[in-house]
């Protein structure tokens, strides 16, 4: 089947997948806190409600930027599965995140502005890793597309375990989980931590939610790259990894942005760059 078909499939199914993961996340989190938790479809109810509310736009660029954020996030996934160069998709991924920063930064609220600054720091912390990760995956599989990696006879997770370990740590940041949830978080809906969305109401906030569903699906697609022998195996690995991140989320408190930056860069340099270097030295 043509890879573009998979790209289109991602556009249609990723929000459903991401929304269900978010619903399951809320139930698992509640159970870890001895609560019952909301229904599985709660994220969809929330988004549906946000679309039915009035949306106040504080300036004319906010909505186009947020629409761009959702679109670019969806396009990143479609490009990834649609057979575009892997490294190129990481740049589009960064652009999607940057549009959210611009949307938050366009508001005059100091909380929103602080949120935008923090999201920029988050980008600074994780982007070098994603580029290195894709470079390492391309190197070990001798392929530059998603289909190429899946067709490779080598199991990527076994070839570059250091990169996989770093991916698990960086995914905590991208999934908005504690202790790295400095710009926005799933749980405490308070001023600074929800700063990024301070000035977004109604459907504008729904765009951010839907973009996050796409982002979750994208991270699942990245996980499959590591377990390239079988898509099912990759999704099981994603489920186990996600459970571990919910556990970490519930058992740690938030750190400062300085520590986030130091931590992610150190881990990226040590495990990810170290792993890539080892590949070159060993001549694999």
């Amino acid at each position, binding site marked *: 089947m043509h890879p573009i078909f998979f790209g289109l499939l991602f556009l249609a199914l990723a929000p459903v997948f991401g929304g269900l993961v978010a619903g399951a996340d809320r139930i698992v989190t509640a159970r870890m806190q*001895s609560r019952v938790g909301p229904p599985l479809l709660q994220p969809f109810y929330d988004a549906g409600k946000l679309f039915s509310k009035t949306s*106040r736009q504080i300036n004319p660029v906010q909505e186009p930027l947020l629409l761009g954020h959702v679109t670019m996030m969806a396009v990143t996934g479609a490009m990834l599965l649609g057979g575009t160069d892997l490294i190129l998709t990481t740049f589009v991924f960064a652009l999607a995140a940057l549009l959210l920063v611009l949307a938050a930064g366009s508001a005059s609220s100091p909380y929103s502005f602080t949120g935008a600054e923090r999201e920029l720091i988050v980008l600074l912390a994780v982007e070098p890793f994603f580029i290195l990760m894709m470079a390492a995956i391309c190197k070990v599989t001798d392929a530059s597309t998603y289909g190429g990696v899946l067709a490779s006879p080598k199991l990527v997770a076994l070839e570059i375990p250091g990169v996989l370990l770093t991916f698990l740590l960086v995914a905590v940041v991208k999934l908005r989980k504690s202790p790295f949830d400095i710009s926005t978080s799933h749980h405490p809906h308070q*001023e600074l931590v929800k700063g990024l969305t301070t000035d977004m*109401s109604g459907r504008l906030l729904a765009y951010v939610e839907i973009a996050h569903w796409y982002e979750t699906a994208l991270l699942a697609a990245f996980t499959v790259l590591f377990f390239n022998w079988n898509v099912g195996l990759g999704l099981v690995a994603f489920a186990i990894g996600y459970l571990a991140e919910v556990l970490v989320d519930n058992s740690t408190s938030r750190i400062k942005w300085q520590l986030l930056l130091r931590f992610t860069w150190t881990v990226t340099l040590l495990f990810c760059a170290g792993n890539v270097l080892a590949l070159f030295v060993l001549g694999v």
Partner: protein
Amino acid sequence: MSFLRRSPWILHYDASSCNGCDIEVLACLTPLYDVERFGIINTGNPKHADIFLVTGSVNERNVEIIQNLYRQMPDPKVVVAVGACACSGGIFARAYNVQGGIDRVIPVDVYVPGCAARPESIIDGVVRGIEALEGKRALARRQRGEKTA
């Protein structure tokens, strides 16, 4: 059933409460009552909220804040006054700096009595608030329909 009914997000503001009602509001989030079962989220942002939950009475200092928070909430929205002070000013009603209940400054849809209001009655008040929210949405729809017709 509409989405609004399944996902009421609450903004809680402590006007000049003695914290008795506030503790009970927080108790609603604990494992015993767990209001998240109904999709209720305690948000800190008026622009994300559907239900404005106010505890305590209105005084000279917080009247502007209450009005400002109310104005910042997107429609449809409802106000739930929790506890005797928010309903009428309570035992502080005749104090020199107290103006009275919340309905002195913004329209209140649901009154939850009690000093302090019990978590069960707060949850009941929020459920009544959701019904009021539905009513307001239907009204807004009718008005929009009349305009376009």
